[in-house]
C-alpha cells in the first residue's frame, strides 16, 4: 500500500496541483488546516515526525519558520487554495526559524557545516512540490565563510524537487558575498546511487550556484528550471547550473543566465566539470561568460558531452570544451560572443577533442570556432557563420582582435 502511494505521488508530483487536490489521498495529512478530512499539524516538522513512510503532506499557504530534515520517503506538496476560484494562494513558504538558522548537515566532500533549509538524507523516494524555500534573513557574520547555506540539499538520497521556488540562498552579508557558499539546490552523494529530478523550479538570489549536482553516484535530471544569477559582479563567480565530480546529468530546457564575474571570465551558465557523460540540450542561456562549459582537470574526465540545440546569447565563450574528448556540439544558436562561439580549449592540460560540431548557427563572434593548440574536431560541417570576424581560428585559445579578457589558469569557478 505504501509503495503504491509512493509511486503515485512521484508521478503526480509533476502534474497540476488541481489533480493532486482531486486525488484526495488517504495516506495524507495536512499542515495548516486548509483542507478537510485530513489530520492537521501546525508545522511541517511535526507532520514529518508523526507519519509513516510513503505519506503525503499537503502544506497550506503560509509561512513556516522551520528547517526540515527528511529521512524517510514522503511527498510534501504545497496546496493551491485558489486553484478553482482564483481566490487564494499557492505559496507555502519555508522561512528562517525564529531562533535563526541552525547547522543541520555536513558537506559530504570535506565536511563543511551546512545550514540546509530542507535536508533530504538517506531516503529513496522523496518528492517536494510547489514549496517556496526562502533563506532571507540569515545571520552568518560570526561564522564568516565557514558555514554554507543550501536551500534544498539531497545527500545520498533520491527524489524529485519540482515546481518550487528556491530563493535568496546567500549569506545575507555583503562582506561575505565572495564566500564560495550559497547553493539553492544541491545534490551530492558518498554512497551508491542518488537519482534526483529537479524540474520546473524557479531559482533566484543564490550566492554561488543555482543548481549543483556533484559526485559520482548522483544521476540528475535538471529540466525546465529558471535560474538567473545576479548579473555582473566583481565579488563572486556564479554558476546557474553545475554538474560536477562524476555526477551524471541531463540538463534540458532550462532558462539560465546573468552569470558574469567582471574581473575575469569565470562564471558559467551551465558548467559541467569532471563529469561524464552529460547532455546539455535545449537550454536558453543569456548573458553568461561561459554559456556552456565542459571542463576536466587532471583528476577527472568530462568526456562525450552532448551540447545540443541550445540558444545562447551574449557570452565570452559560447560553448567551451576543455580537457574533454569525443563531445558533440551540434545545432546550437550562438549570438554575440567576444571570444569563441565554440571553443575547443587546449588550456586544461588534457587533450581536447570534439567528435562533431555541426549545424550550429553563429551570429557575431570574434571566433566562430576557436581551436587551441592540439585540439581537434572530427566532423565539422553545416555550420553557419554570420558576422564572425574569424570563422575558424586554430592554435590559440584567445581570439585576437576581439574583446580580450585575461583568462585564469583554472578558468572556470567550480564549487567543490
Amino acid at each position: 500500500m505504501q509503495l503504491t502511494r509512493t509511486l503515485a505521488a512521484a508521478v503526480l508530483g509533476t502534474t497540476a496541483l488541481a489533480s493532486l487536490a482531486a486525488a484526495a489521498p488517504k495516506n495524507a495529512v495536512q499542515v495548516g488546516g486548509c483542507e478537510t478530512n485530513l489530520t492537521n499539524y501546525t508545522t511541517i516538522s511535526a507532520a514529518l515526525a508523526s507519519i509513516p513512510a510513503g505519506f503525503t503532506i499537503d502544506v497550506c499557504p503560509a509561512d513556516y519558520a522551520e528547517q526540515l530534515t527528511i529521512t524517510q520517503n514522503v511527498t510534501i506538496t504545497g496546496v493551491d487554495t485558489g486553484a478553482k476560484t482564483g481566490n487564494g494562494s499557492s505559496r507555502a513558504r519555508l522561512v528562517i526559524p525564529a531562533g535563526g538558522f541552525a547547522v543541520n548537515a555536513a558537506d559530504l566532500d570535506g565536511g563543511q557545516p551546512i545550514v540546509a533549509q530542507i535536508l533530504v538524507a538517506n531516503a529513496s523516494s522523496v518528492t517536494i512540490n510547489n514549496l517556496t524555500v526562502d533563506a532571507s534573513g540569515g545571520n552568518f557574520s560570526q561564522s564568516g565563510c565557514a558555514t554554507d547555506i543550501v536551500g534544498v540539499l539531497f545527500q545520498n538520497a533520491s527524489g524529485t524537487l519540482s515546481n518550487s521556488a528556491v530563493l535568496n540562498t546567500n549569506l545575507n552579508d555583503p562582506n561575505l558575498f565572495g564566500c564560495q557558499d550559497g547553493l539553492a539546490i544541491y545534490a551530492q552523494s558518498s554512497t551508491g546511487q542518488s537519482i534526483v529530478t529537479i524540474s520546473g523550479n524557479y531559482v533566484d538570489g543564490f550566492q554561488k550556484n543555482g543548481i549543483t549536482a556533484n559526485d559520482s553516484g548522483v544521476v540528475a535530471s535538471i529540466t525546465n528550471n529558471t535560474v538567473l544569477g545576479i548579473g555582473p559582479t566583481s565579488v563572486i563567480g556564479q554558476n546557474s547550473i553545475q554538474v560536477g565530480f562524476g555526477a551524471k546529468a541531463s540538463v534540458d530546457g532550462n532558462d539560465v543566465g546573468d552569470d558574469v564575474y567582471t574581473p575575469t571570465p569565470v562564471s558559467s551558465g551551465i558548467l559541467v566539470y569532471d563529469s561524464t557523460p552529460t547532455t546539455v540540450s535545449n537550454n536558453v542561456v543569456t548573458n553568461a561568460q561561459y554559456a556552456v562549459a565542459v571542463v576536466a582537470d587532471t583528476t577527472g574526465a568530462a568526456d562525450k558531452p552532448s551540447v545540443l540545440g541550445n540558444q545562447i546569447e551574449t557570452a565570452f565563450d559560447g560553448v567551451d570544451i576543455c580537457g574533454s574528448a569525443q563531445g558533440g556540439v551540434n545545432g546550437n544558436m550562438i549570438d554575440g560572443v567576444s571570444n569563441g562561439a565554440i571553443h575547443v580549449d587546449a588550456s586544461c592540460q588534457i587533450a581536447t577533442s570534439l567528435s562533431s560540431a555541426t549545424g550550429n548557427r553563429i551570429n557575431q563572434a570574434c571566433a566562430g570556432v576557436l581551436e587551441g593548440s592540439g585540439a581537434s574536431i572530427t566532423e565539422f560541417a553545416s555550420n553557419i557563420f554570420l558576422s564572425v570576424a574569424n570563422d575558424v581560428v586554430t592554435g590559440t585559445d584567445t581570439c585576437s582582435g576581439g574583446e580580450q579578457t585575461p583568462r585564469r589558469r583554472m578558468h572556470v569557478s567550480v564549487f567543490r
Partner: protein
Amino acid sequence: MSKTHLAIDRAVMGLALATTMLAALPAYAKKTTTIEVGSCVSGLPTFATISDAITAAPKNATIEICPGNYTEQLKIAKNLTLTGLDAGGNTGAGSSLVHIVAPSGGFQANATDLNGGQPIAAQLVVSSGAVAKVIGLGFDASGSSFGDCSTNLVGVLVQNATATLQNNSVLNDTLGGNLTGCQDGEGILVESSTGAKATIAGNHVSGFDKNGITIKNATTSATVSGNTVEGGGAAAVAAQNGVEISTGAVATVSKNVIADFVYGGGTYAASSVLVYNAPKATVTGNVINEGQYAIIIYSDGSMSADNPTITKNTVAHTTLTDAVEICGAADATVNTNTISGSQLSAIHIDGTCSGSGAKAITGNRINYACAGILTGAGASGVSKNTFLNTGADVLQSDSCPGDQSRVRQARRASPRR
C-alpha cells in the same frame, strides 16, 4: 584553395536558415545581376566601397560584399539586395564579418526623423519606396563622437520603404560618454509617413543606448522574429526597450530572445517588449530574461492598443513592475505563457489605466509572483492557469497587499520620443 568556392551567398540561404540551423547550405549560385564589393569572388564586377556599388548597381541587383572593414554610411533608395559573404565557413579559415563602421570623419546626420524631425545619423538608411534585402552584415557604431543629445544614432533606419533585415548584427548604437542617457541610440528603426514594411529576422542587436528594435507609425507593419536583443541591464542609464512597437504600427514579435532590460526605481521603467499606442500586436514565443516590464501593452488614450495577443512567451525574473502589463488596452488575450519570478504580478490588467481589459487569460504557468494575476480593470476568461508559489493567485486589485515592501509605484513605460 579558391576563395570563389568558399564564398557563401547568404541571399540564397533565405529566411528558413534563420531558424533552421540544420539545413544544408545550398550550392553557391551566381545571379545575373550581381556585383561585388571587395575581391573574394572571381568574375564579378567589383567596387571598393559599398556606396560605390549601390550607386552603380542597376535596380534589383544583388551586391555581394566581401568580409572587411567598411568605413561608410550607406543609403539605399532603389530595389537592391545587399548580402555579406562568408569567406571561411566550414571549409577553411576566413571571415564572415562585413564590418560596417564609423567613417574616418565620424558619423554625419544623413536622415531626419519622420516623427519630430530630429537629425539621425544612420549606418544604413533604406528609404524612398525602395524594396531592399540586407543580409548578413555587421553594423558596428562604436566610436561615435557626438557632443550632445541633438542627433540620434541608428544602426539600420528604414523610412517609407520595404526592407528585409536578416541575419545581421547591429552593435553599439551608443552616443557614449555621458550621453548614454540621451534617449538616443537605436539598433533598428522602422518608421513611415506613407508606408513601410519590414521583416526583421535572425539579427543580433546589442550595445545600444535606448531601443534595440523600434517599429513606428500607423502606415508601418513589421515582423520581428528570431532576433536576440541584449540590453544594458541595471547599468543602463536610459530606460531601455528591447523591442518597441508604437504609434499605430502593426507588428508580430515572435521567437526572439530578449534579455537584461532593467532601469531601476525611478519614474520610468525599462520594457523588454513595449507595445505603445499600437493595435493588434502579436507577441508570441519569445524568451524574456531579466526585465522590468517584460511585455507591456500601453495606450495613453491618443491611439488604440487594443486586441493584443500575448501567447507562449517564457518570462524569467522581472523586478519592480509586472511581467505582463495591460494598460489602457482592451480585449487582451494572454494565454499559455510561462512566467517565473515576478516581483509584483505575473499578469496585470491595470485598472489605473483607462480602458484596460482582457478577454482571455488561460493556460498560463506562473511560478513565484507576489500575485499571479491582478485584474484591477476586470478581466473575463480567466481560467485554467497554474499557480505555483504565488502569494495570491488572482486578485481584483492593482496592487499586491501582502507584500508591503513592494508597494507599487506608478512607473511608466518609456517609449522613445
